[in-house]
């Protein structure tokens, strides 16, 4: 009884295991991210590039899976020489995918093999293309066209590996670290120049503004001078006319009056005046007799 039961259990287990092995060898799933080729003793039978449940002859046929997604090859940065003999450290990556698994399997076997070949090809294409362009072009406007050319040329070569090359991109393009210091020195010099230029421009503007202001002030004052002199002249002219008109009536009397006025003005207190005693003023000092006014005293 006991042995029978054990035999049954062992039998069941064996049967289940065998069944599973056979099932595993017969039925397989191809994921949406994968593709597969079926070989029979190494001989190619068919390619499966649609996802789903698939069957093969157990033990006789083998299945090899390949990635169907877009893959990346990120090669380590390398130094390249540009047309103008400058050195650039370029870090690029390549995006690719397997489109012909059979070809891929035959030529490079697996992803590792593919990466080795791909990197080599892209590297040499990149080297050729970069050597045909100047530093400035690579950094600036020509970067994309260069990438496209490299991708195009490489893609022709790698197509025989059953690989479709999607693109090659320069991720980083840097100067070697030894050169960086001289770039910094140049940048400093450039900034220095700009700083000096700004200050000089400031000085320039300031001087122009000051000169303009000085000029304006001088002109304003000169204008005022002109107006002022004209006005003063007019005033003098008008006064002269008025005086002339009035004094014309008796010039002699005017002369007399004006002289008196003038005496009063300039003979101030403290003035020393020496008079002759024979002056007209003192004609009565000697005696009270009337005299002829125009007859001088003896």
């Amino acid at each position: 009884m006991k042995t029978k039961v054990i035999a049954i259990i062992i039998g069941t287990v064996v049967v289940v295991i065998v069944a599973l092995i056979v099932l595993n060898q017969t039925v397989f799933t191809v994921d949406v991210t994968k593709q597969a080729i079926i070989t029979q003793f190494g001989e190619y039978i068919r390619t499966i590039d649609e996802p789903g449940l698939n069957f093969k002859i157990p033990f006789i046929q083998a299945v090899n899976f390949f990635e169907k997604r877009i893959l990346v090859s990120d090669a380590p940065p390398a130094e390249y020489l540009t047309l103008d003999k400058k050195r650039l450290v370029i870090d690029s990556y390549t995006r690719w995918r397997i489109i012909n698994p059979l070809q891929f399997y035959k030529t490079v076997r697996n992803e590792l093999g593919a990466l080795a070949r791909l990197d080599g090809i892209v590297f040499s294409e990149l080297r050729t293309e970069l050597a045909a362009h100047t530093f400035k072009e690579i950094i600036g406007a020509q970067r994309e066209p260069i990438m496209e050319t490299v991708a195009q040329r490489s893609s022709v070569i790698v197509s025989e590996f059953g690989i479709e090359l999607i693109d090659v991109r320069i991720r980083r393009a840097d100067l070697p670290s030894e050169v960086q210091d001289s770039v910094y020195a140049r940048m400093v010099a450039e900034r220095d120049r700009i700083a000096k230029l700004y200050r000089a421009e400031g000085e320039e503007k300031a001087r122009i503004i000051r000169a303009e202001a000085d000029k304006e002030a001088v002109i304003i004052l000169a204008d005022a001078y002109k107006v002022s002199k004209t006005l003063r002249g007019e005033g003098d002219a008008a006064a002269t006319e008025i005086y002339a008109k009035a004094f014309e009536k008796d010039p002699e009397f005017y002369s007399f009056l004006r002289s008196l006025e003038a005496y009063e003005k300039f003979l101030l207190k403290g003035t020393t005046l020496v008079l002759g005693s024979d002056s007209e003023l003192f004609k009565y000092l000697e005696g009270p007799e009337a005299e002829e006014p125009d007859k001088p005293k003896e």
Partner: protein
Amino acid sequence: MNLGSSEKRAVKRYKNRKDLELKGGTKVIIQRVKLPRILRIWGRGKIIGIAVGIVVVIWLLAPIYIVGPGEVGVVRQFGREVRQTSPGLNYHIPWPIQRADVVNMAQIRRAEIGFRTVEVQGKQSAHERVLAEALMLTGDENIADIQVLVQYRVKDASQFLFKVREPEKALWSATEVALRGVIGKNTIDDAMTVGRPLVEADTLLFLQRLLDDYQTGLHVVELKLLVVDPPDAVKDAFHEVVRALEDKERLVREAEGYAADLVPKARGDAEKEIKAAEAYMKERGLRAEGDAAKFLEVLEEYLKAPVVTRERLYLETIERVLADVEKFIIDPQVSGGNLLQFLPLTGIEPKEEVKE
């Protein structure tokens, strides 16, 4: 009692089955008949049964999965995508037939280029620079220190899951490609100042184009240049330029200040001069008129009695004038007309009259 009756029922059921499936094959019959007995005899068998049962239950329950808000479940059947499920409790046919992946579509993810946000002892996050990423060449062969924050989300779950290996890593590299490509076309001054929004927009466009090329299923929501700086080694020189710019502005302002001070004052002086001239003009005219009027008045009176008036006017004036003046009256017969012998005249007693 209860046990007994239930056993009887079980036996009856097996007997009935046995009758029905006699043609099915001996193996089945043996199992059907023996198994309950084995279980009854050996408790160990029972345990195995329970274990198998548990495994089966787990196998059946494992496919229950929760799709949270903003998430999408993608179900594959034999490796082929069959449906996408919406938020809630979901179930798929157990492995190995179906499997499900849940992708968060609403979550805004971040990619940091040129820096990393790191937690410092569980406290607030700190900014850690990654110079290799941040330093890049500009179009005018300068080096700039740039930090970028990319915010993105998944826009196509099946592309995100199935089309490219490591789609988020692809985004990181693509961001560097796009950023350096765009910066390479700009000068450092542009990138640092006015060109900044343009650099952001161009980089975003370029990046999205690359992401679509690679079928990453990612959508860039926002790309922000957090920092666009000169490298540390030349920072001082750049600050110097800023200072120079300030100096320039200052010099101009100072000059403008000078002008602002000078010109109005000049205008004021000018106006003052003109006013003075106007005043002078008026004054001259009025005074002349006044003088003329006075003269005419006096003349009128004078003409009535010219000799007397003339004498009066003369004497009155002389009287006023000589009252205050220091006088020396000299007899010409004594002095011989020569006044020099009396010099110096000052120092002589003021009121003294020299008389013969």
